[in-house]
């Protein structure tokens, strides 16, 4: 019997990263999601809206790892590969499609330009379902973001990715 690629995947660390949230990238990201609100660009507008700084748009935590993850900030134990990719690569080798099934964010406070945040990603669930003749493999990755200096919680991101055979 072949080893199941999902065996033991729950609990696997997928990421450990420290990022700086940069004002320029926040503004670029806001433009990319077609949000022209001045709060993402002008600290005076953010202050007038009662915010402590320039906030990031709500879906920004999904892309934080791709900007401002400077080498000197990175933890020694950062995983080199992604558990999701490791899990799904053998499935993909046989064809099929990777889909982003669901996404959830919980926010304890807004993410602000200037924040230095630490993110730890873990596989929290993995399962299969049959749907309309396709085998669907679901992997859920939860990334918990905290303020790097204080350890206070900032937000949690949950991503459900699907391999459809």
């Amino acid at each position: 019997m072949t080893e199941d690629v999902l065996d033991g995947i729950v609990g696997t660390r997928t990421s450990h990263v420290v990022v700086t949230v940069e004002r320029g990238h926040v503004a670029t990201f806001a433009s990319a999601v077609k949000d022209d609100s001045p709060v993402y660009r002008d600290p005076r507008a953010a202050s007038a809206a009662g915010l402590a700084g320039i906030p990031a748009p709500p879906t920004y935590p999904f892309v934080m790892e791709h900007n401002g993850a400077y080498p000197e900030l990175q933890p020694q134990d950062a995983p080199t590969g992604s558990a999701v990719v490791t899990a799904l690569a053998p499935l993909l080798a046989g064809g099929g499609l990777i889909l982003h099934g669901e996404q959830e964010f919980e926010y304890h406070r807004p993410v602000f330009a200037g924040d230095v945040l630490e993110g730890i990603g873990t596989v929290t669930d993995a399962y299969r379902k049959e749907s309309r003749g396709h085998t669907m493999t679901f992997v859920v990755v939860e990334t918990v973001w905290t303020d790097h200096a204080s350890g206070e919680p900032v937000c949690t991101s949950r991503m459900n990715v699907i391999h459809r055979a």
Partner: protein
Amino acid sequence: MLWFEDVQVGDEAPVRVHVLTRTDLVAYAGASGDFNPMHHDEVKAVAAGQPSVFGHGMFSMGLLGAALTDYVGAGAVRRFQVRFAKQTWPGEELRTSVVVRGTRSEEDDHLVDLDVRLHNAAGEVKVVGQATAAVPVRP
């Protein structure tokens, strides 16, 4: 500014309408770091059996996030959850729907629960989910 006292079940956020372009997908790829060729490389997308490039799910969620913060205010969102139901295609008109499902108070927090949806002009649902925001009470 949205005040908690003024929120009624069934209230709707202003609708955002956006016609998706290939340029949007390139801009989102650059800003997000998601360079999956299915979203910007027409040759590869067609070779993979797709009719054309298609939108990032997170671009759709981002459009919906903009409609949400237009209404409740940036920084007010406590939870935002969606399921990606259908792909989005260049040329499609995407429309947001953000509707108040309920209000509740927990200790010092005054919360608004919302149903969120992105659909095309024909009404096909692309993204569907829920959000919760904490909004202030009148001083």
